[in-house]
């Protein structure tokens, strides 16, 4: 089975590196500059699960080296359009596309471009970052990806084969029969965390110090849950409890990565994570006053950033 990974950034580089290390046939589709660096220095992973520097297969045009059985997308949502263009030549009649993005909108966009049947669901949970030398720093105890059919049917052979390769590579996760619900649950959590941390400009625990911080966080969870329910993906009692308790830990220093991006002046996935939730709420006639306020905050940031004043 031939696997193409778009980009060799934090998540793609880590997962692809582990797959390659364990013998899978992995190719990275990268830009010229990254290609040169990888050819010169190899792919460097520094990890709690062991360091490794290895030479990997790379291409700079998706037309090379194919056809691929599986194409994995790990780009940021705001780069999705260019990512779709970049991988398009690598997607053949029997290719499966696995996006490891947060939110849901990318799935519609990918399905529209490549056809519904080619696009499955995917979810990454890897605490990993890339430093300015292009080294992949995996500092957390977890590294997992999961994927599965969006209609809940038994997984196609390519996913079964990928599941075996993932298990061999030491990355956790694999096939997930419940992938769409898991994507929704994660989106609700992430949307709430990003919206509240950015609107309030603080870590989860800072917000909880404010008189009504907890109430505002829980209302925001509720807005996301209503949107999910309207789409047929109510997280259920257990799902909601998990999300609520994760977001209301007193003293927690955990903050949305979007807040870190905001404070660095970087691009943020505002439209994908918060804006799209609001758009779906509007369509379903659901009021989302908290998300509206947070989205206004993010739009102010983007306007300032566009004007060079972030």
């Amino acid at each position, binding site marked *: 089975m031939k696997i193409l990974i778009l980009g060799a950034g934090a998540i793609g580089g880590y997962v692809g590196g582990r797959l390659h290390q364990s013998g899978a046939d992995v190719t990275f589709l990268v830009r010229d500059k990254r290609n040169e660096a990888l050819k010169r220095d190899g792919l460097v992973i520094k990890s709690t699960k062991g360091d490794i520097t290895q030479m990997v297969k790379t291409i700079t045009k998706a037309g090379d080296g194919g056809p691929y059985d599986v194409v994995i997308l790990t780009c940021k949502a705001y780069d999705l359009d260019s990512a779709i263009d970049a991988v398009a030549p690598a997607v053949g009649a029997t290719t499966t596309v696995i996006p490891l993005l947060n939110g849901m909108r990318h799935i519609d966009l990918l399905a529209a471009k490549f056809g519904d049947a080619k696009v499955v669901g995917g979810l990454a949970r890897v605490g990993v970052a890339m430093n300015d030398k292009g080294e992949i720093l995996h500092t957390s105890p977890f590294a997992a990806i999961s994927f599965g059919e969006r209609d809940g049917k038994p997984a196609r052979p390519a996913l079964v084969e990928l599941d075996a390769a993932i298990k061999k590579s030491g990355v956790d996760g694999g096939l997930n029969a419940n992938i769409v619900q898991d994507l929704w649950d994660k989106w609700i959590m992430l949307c709430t965390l990003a919206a509240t941390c950015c609107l309030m*400009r*603080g870590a989860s625990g800072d917000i909880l110090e404010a008189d009504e*911080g907890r109430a505002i966080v829980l209302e925001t969870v509720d807005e996301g849950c209503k949107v999910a329910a309207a789409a047929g993906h109510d997280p259920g009692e257990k799902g909601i409890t998990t999300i609520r308790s994760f977001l209301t830990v007193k003293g927690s220093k955990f903050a949305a990565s979007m807040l870190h991006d905001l404070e660095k002046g970087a691009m943020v996935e505002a439209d994908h994570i918060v804006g799209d939730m609001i758009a779906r709420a509007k369509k379903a006639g659901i009021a989302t006053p908290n998300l509206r306020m947070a989205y*206004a905050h993010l739009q102010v940031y983007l306007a300032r950033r566009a004007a060079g004043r972030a």
Partner: protein
Amino acid sequence: MKILILGAGAVGGYWGARLHQSGADVTFLLREKRAEKVRKDGLVVKSPKGDAVIPAKVVTKGSEGGPYDIVVLACKAYDLDSAMESIAPAVGTNTTIVPMLNGHAHFATLDKKFGPEKVAGGLARISGMLGPNGEILHSGASGVSFGERDGKPARASLVELEVACKKAGIDGGINANINQDLWDKWIMLATIAGMCSSMRGTVGDIMETEDGAAIVLETLDESCKVATAEGHAPSDKVLAGLKTMLTSKGSKAVASILGDIEKGGPAEGKQIVGDMLARARKAGIAAPNLRFAYTHLQTYEARRARGGLK
């Protein structure tokens, strides 16, 4: 007439300097460090209306140099408690206190401590800031107004203060409508401080977003309802002026509290936004936007208290 001014920041410093220059008997009550600096270098004013170095009279204890006919409080709202302790020995039977603070919360505190008959209303329109060496950087408006809060004719000492102000080239003077003006200014400030801080941008930045203008006008409306409930509804003319000012496209207008937040300094969130929200609650007025804004400001304080995001 002997005038004591607590604080030599932009408002107290500029006003006092001009009074001193025109021959009024002005003393500054300052903290030890600031007093030393002013004794050594004089009070340095840089202003479009003329630079000056004033050999100002300085005391560090309210018990020195009194009794005073007028005590001007030009401190930040969060310093009110310590300011009251400092001036207490300077306040005699015939002293009038003129507070130049924003909001309304300070009146209850001052009335309780000194008796309502001693406390007049005061409003500053002096734009400026302190420079790195403690110099007063005056940038534009130079008006102060003061008057009896019950609307009765001004007492003799306020009349005398008005004469001194006119002589000093300070605009304004006695204001028969001081209480309403204080409310009008507070409505404006609660809105602009609440919005610029929770959105982290100028009025113009907020206008760049889809719902920005609507959110600002809703917030203004929340504050207007509070003012109305307290018997101080703004006139149609004032309200129209506020609406125009707060929704002007491309406006660089920004609340000074945003500068305080971006510097990581103390902010008057509780007095400007928190107190408006508290009064809304008491009157049974829904104030969702003030609630978001105050939660933002409280989150800021929590984060500041623990020294950052990390």
